């Protein structure tokens, strides 16, 4: 960024400093390690200077917030106008219990809802299915039919809150239920704001709650894109997720690379289905992890924003600026939480919160200190939410836009992460795109290698996790963890039974038949799913029909 003469001076001075100060000093004060490296294995220099930014063009590479290439943020004033949405992911047991937790969180100043579903719901089984045994209500709320969804949002005005739903394979069904509940509240679909995760590719890569094969899953996703662009225009139709890729053990650069590669696959699928890029791309959203390495994470968010903008503009020819803006939700990194000395996790989460905010996130979930042990209690969720509020109101980092821009280190790393991610994307293109690369196990293998290296570093104590492999203490078992009501499964089974007794059975069967026909052909499945939901067909029945027509995904096992 400096003029040539000035840059030359900097370089000469740096050489002198190296010789006079560093080389001499090292014999007396050797460094802690021979090599300092980032999560991707890239080298970290001792010192960064303007020399490292040679060739950077401020207007072109960084520009201004709210303008291409969005390195500095997607809005011109960022948190000076409005803080990020504080959105705690919650849901457990029954719809009744979760509804209480949501109301509590809203009373505590949370500004959006985020629904966690239990595993049977995420895999399209009703609570009375054989494979659901022992899993009902454990990692999220159990939703079997519209009955549960009505209870879940009882007393919560859906025209006032925005709701994020972590649901993928059966996303169409849960979105349909949300639309139906809103309708009963007198809220039309075009007023609804929120997000469905709806990102099946990362389920195959890292998260595991898939149902249908790749092609059929991509079809359901593009059906949702097409339907929502007309009927639910404020809804974010997908949240393309790096979070779980990182949790599975990837590096920061891999997180960006594989997430954007998945994004490219969705855009290509939608264009292939006949949609205009600017009709759906403004509603694409992203979801990233916020890990411990504060400056690497800030650089990661900035790199992802710049790279996505370029991809949308240059590769897909998007014209609408909104199509080029990478908007993202962040969650602090669950895998960094330790079961040992859980209070320390509050500090980790605070650092990760700073990273997300300095990186320009649109919304944030902060993990609770007890999540390496169980689902969080109400008290620990409150501390997690307070952490965000302290960063927002007390730390001062939200008072100017992108405050770390111009740091030699952060700018250099932003560029390096972008380049590393682009290299992976080219490799994935050569393999035939993300779906093909997943099928061949390439992405899974790359993540697995990183994750195993990380584990080895821990065990050799090259990497220290406080309280876990150093600074341990003798601990008593933690008390007061959240315990779930063991009767949840029974309660859900009873509700299904009652719902089935009270519905018009012929209407259910007619709607399921129509859905089967639509799924077998090329028609958009979304309206048929909505009608089935309104007739109180269960999630399991609807997914059952789709399983019959589409078949199921077969995992390629990579270790």
């Amino acid at each position, binding site marked *: 960024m400096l003029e040539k003469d000035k840059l030359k001076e900097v370089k000469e001075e740096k050489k002198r400093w190296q010789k006079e100060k560093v080389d001499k000093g090292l014999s007396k004060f050797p460094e802690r390690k021979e090599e300092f490296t980032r999560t991707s294995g890239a080298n970290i220099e001792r010192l960064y200077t303007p020399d490292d930014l040679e060739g950077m063009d401020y207007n072109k590479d960084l520009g201004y917030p709210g303008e291409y290439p969005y390195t500095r943020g997607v809005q011109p004033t960022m948190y000076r106008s409005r803080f990020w949405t504080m959105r705690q992911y919650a849901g457990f047991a029954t719809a009744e219990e979760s509804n209480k937790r949501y109301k509590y969180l809203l009373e505590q100043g949370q500004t959006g809802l985020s629904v966690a579903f239990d*595993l*049977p719901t*995420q*895999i399209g089984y009703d609570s009375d299915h054989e*494979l*659901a*045994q*022992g*899993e009902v209500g*454990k*990692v999220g709320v159990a939703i079997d039919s519209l009955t549960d969804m009505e209870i879940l949002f009882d007393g919560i005005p859906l025209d006032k809150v925005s709701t994020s739903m972590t649901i993928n394979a059966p996303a169409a069904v849960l979105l349909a239920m949300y639309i139906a509940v809103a309708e009963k509240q007198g809220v039309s679909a075009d007023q609804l704001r929120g997000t469905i995760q709806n990102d099946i590719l990362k*389920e195959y890569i*890292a*998260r*595991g*709650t898939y149902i249908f094969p790749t092609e059929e899953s991509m079809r359901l996703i593009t059906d949702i894109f097409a339907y929502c662009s007309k009927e639910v225009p404020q809804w974010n139709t997908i949240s393309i997720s790096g979070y779980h890729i990182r*949790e*599975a*053990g990837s590096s920061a650069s891999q997180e960006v690379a594989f997430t954007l590669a998945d994004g490219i696959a969705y855009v290509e699928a939608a264009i292939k289905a006949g949609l205009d890029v600017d009709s759906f791309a403004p509603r694409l959203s992203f979801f990233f992890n916020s890990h411990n390495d504060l400056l690497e994470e800030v650089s990661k968010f900035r790199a992802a924003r710049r790279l996505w903008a370029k991809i949308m503009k240059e590769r897909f020819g998007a014209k609408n600026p909104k199509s080029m803006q990478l908007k993202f939700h962040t969650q602090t990194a669950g*895998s960094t939480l*330790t*079961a*040992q000395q859980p209070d320390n996790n509050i500090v980790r989460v605070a650092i990760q919160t700073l990273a997300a905010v300095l990186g320009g996130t649109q919304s944030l979930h902060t993990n609770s200190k007890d999540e*390496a*042990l*169980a*689902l969080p209690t109400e008290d620990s969720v409150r501390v997690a939410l307070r952490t965000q509020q302290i960063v927002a109101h007390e730390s001062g980092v939200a008072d100017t836009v992108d405050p770390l821009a111009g740091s030699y280190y952060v700018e250099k790393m932003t560029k390096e992460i972008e380049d590393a991610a682009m290299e992976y994307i080219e490799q994935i293109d050569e393999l035939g795109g993300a779906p093909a690369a997943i099928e061949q196990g390439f992405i899974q293998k790359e993540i*697995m290698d990183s*994750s*195993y290296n990380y*584990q080895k570093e*821990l*065990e050799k104590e090259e990497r220290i*996790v406080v309280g*876990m*492999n150093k600074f341990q203490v003798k601990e008593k*078992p*933690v008390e007061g*963890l959240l315990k*779930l009501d063991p009767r949840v499964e029974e309660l859900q089974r009873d509700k299904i039974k009652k719902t089935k007794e009270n519905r018009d059975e012929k209407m259910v069967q007619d709607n399921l038949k129509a859905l089967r026909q639509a799924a077998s052909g090329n028609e958009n499945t979304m309206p048929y799913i909505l009608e089935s939901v309104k007739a109180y067909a269960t999630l399991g029945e609807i997914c059952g029909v789709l399983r019959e027509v589409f078949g199921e995904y077969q*995992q390629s*096992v*990579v*270790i």
Partner: protein
Amino acid sequence: MDKPIRVLVAKPGLDGHDRGAKVIARALRDAGMEVVYTGLRQTPEQIVQTAIQEDVDVVALSILSGAHNHLLPKIVNRLKEEGVYDEVLVLAGGVIPDDDIPGLKEAGIEAVFTPGTPTGVTINFIKENLKK
């Protein structure tokens, strides 16, 4: 030389978190053991049948869904019914609250490894506690 220890690493239940299962599978392999990994969403019956077919010395169950109290004893009981429990060391790992561990041990899970356990601890436990 003795024949290598054979281990089945299995994921019972519906959760898709397999980072731990894969890390332990690789670590056991690097420690010279023969490892079979089942992949996700295995029913107790599938796990027991694979253990028998693969003639393993160890069954290592990885679960993070919270369904451990329901699923793990089922697997042990089926191994007993098939008459192989006396030959197979059964371990579990994952997010399992301390309060649940005594019950699982009583049910026949020989050790439970919670988050943060170094892989070396698991490897040594296997070497020292093999049943045959």
